[in-house]
């Protein structure tokens, strides 16, 4: 956040969709057979990788129109050459995808940052660093919406949660330090590789 990439208005606005979706997803999680959910989500992830690699990072569109202007969602991206203005496009579509992302997150108990980034940079055409950091900014809130439900249902086992939480924290602290020096292209490939592995793993687990 200190680096000035996060767009808090976009995050806040889209959190309405992601948290509502997460509540719906958590409700579904208690009802649907897990292998069906896993398989479908694995497929969604593979499609996401395809889209990420096929599409290039969008050129920032400086002018906000329609809903983006009314919600004042435009911002500036700090670059070595000075601030570059950008404005999100297709806000209703982005909001819709984010709601679905929230539902998937509640359903699977993951942050689904992957789907969020796809909504932010592919649908809304935000610069890659803005979409990644804004998505990170939202993950905690989205997860918190369903985490309370998991806790009450006894889905959170401290024996699993403790090592996972400490490991994720160590990993994300390392990643945050790399972000400011990393190249967008490198980020996209690392990101795609991770999602590809995750997608294949989920399909294999789901079909077994």
């Amino acid at each position, binding site marked *: 956040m200190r680096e000035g990439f996060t767009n808090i208005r976009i995050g*806040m606005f889209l959190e309405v969709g992601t948290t509502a979706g997460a509540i719906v997803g958590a409700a579904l999680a208690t009802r649907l057979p897990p292998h069906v959910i896993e398989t479908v989500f694995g497929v969604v992830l593979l499609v996401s990788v395809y889209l990420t690699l096929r599409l290039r990072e969008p050129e920032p569109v400086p002018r906000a129109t329609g809903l983006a202007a009314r919600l004042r969602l435009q911002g500036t991206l700090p670059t070595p050459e000075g601030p570059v203005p950008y404005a999100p496009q297709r806000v209703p579509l982005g909001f819709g995808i984010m709601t679905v992302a929230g539902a998937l997150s509640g359903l699977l108990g993951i942050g689904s940052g992957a789907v969020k980034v796809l909504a932010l940079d592919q649908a809304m055409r935000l610069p890659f660093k803005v979409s990644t950091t804004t998505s990170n900014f939202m993950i905690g809130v989205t997860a918190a919406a369903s985490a309370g439900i998991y806790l009450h249902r006894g889905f959170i086992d401290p024996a699993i949660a403790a090592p996972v939480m400490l490991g994720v924290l160590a990993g994300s602290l390392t990643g945050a330090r790399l972000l400011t020096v990393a190249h967008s292209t490198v980020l996209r490939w690392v990101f795609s590789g991770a999602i590809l592995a995750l997608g294949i793993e989920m399909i294999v687990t789901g079909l077994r």
Partner: protein
Amino acid sequence: MMNGRPHGPAKAGATGGPTDERPLPAPRPATDDGSDRRMQLAIGSILRIGVLLAAAIVLTGAVVWLSGAARTDAAFGTFHGVAPGLTTVAGVVRDAARLRGEAIIQVGLVVLILTPVARVALSAVAFALERDRLYVALTLIVLAILLFGLTGHTL
């Protein structure tokens, strides 16, 4: 924090304060004014403090739990819900007070879950200070949804 509005370039603190603990190559966004910047840093601190506090509690709980005598072999192959005492905030706090490792871990996780909720609450205050009614309303909607989930409601 709201980098959308056009700001006068002459505003004091427009270049941001020397508040970073470590040097960063990234330049400051030129449109941030002082209060936006302070807000962003305050929200950042809440998240950092909450997560580190949660991690410290989880780590403490893990140490207590692993050093306990009542350890059995882990059986992660089958899924089973945890003990009833570990599923409510009141139950978790009660057991943690008896220095049960698992309950201390759960307290840390509850702190972790509450961290973004605190962030949203602080954002609502920040938007109110900026007299930004639209975003106060949006933020309060998010807060209401979060509280609905935290109290264990499902649809």
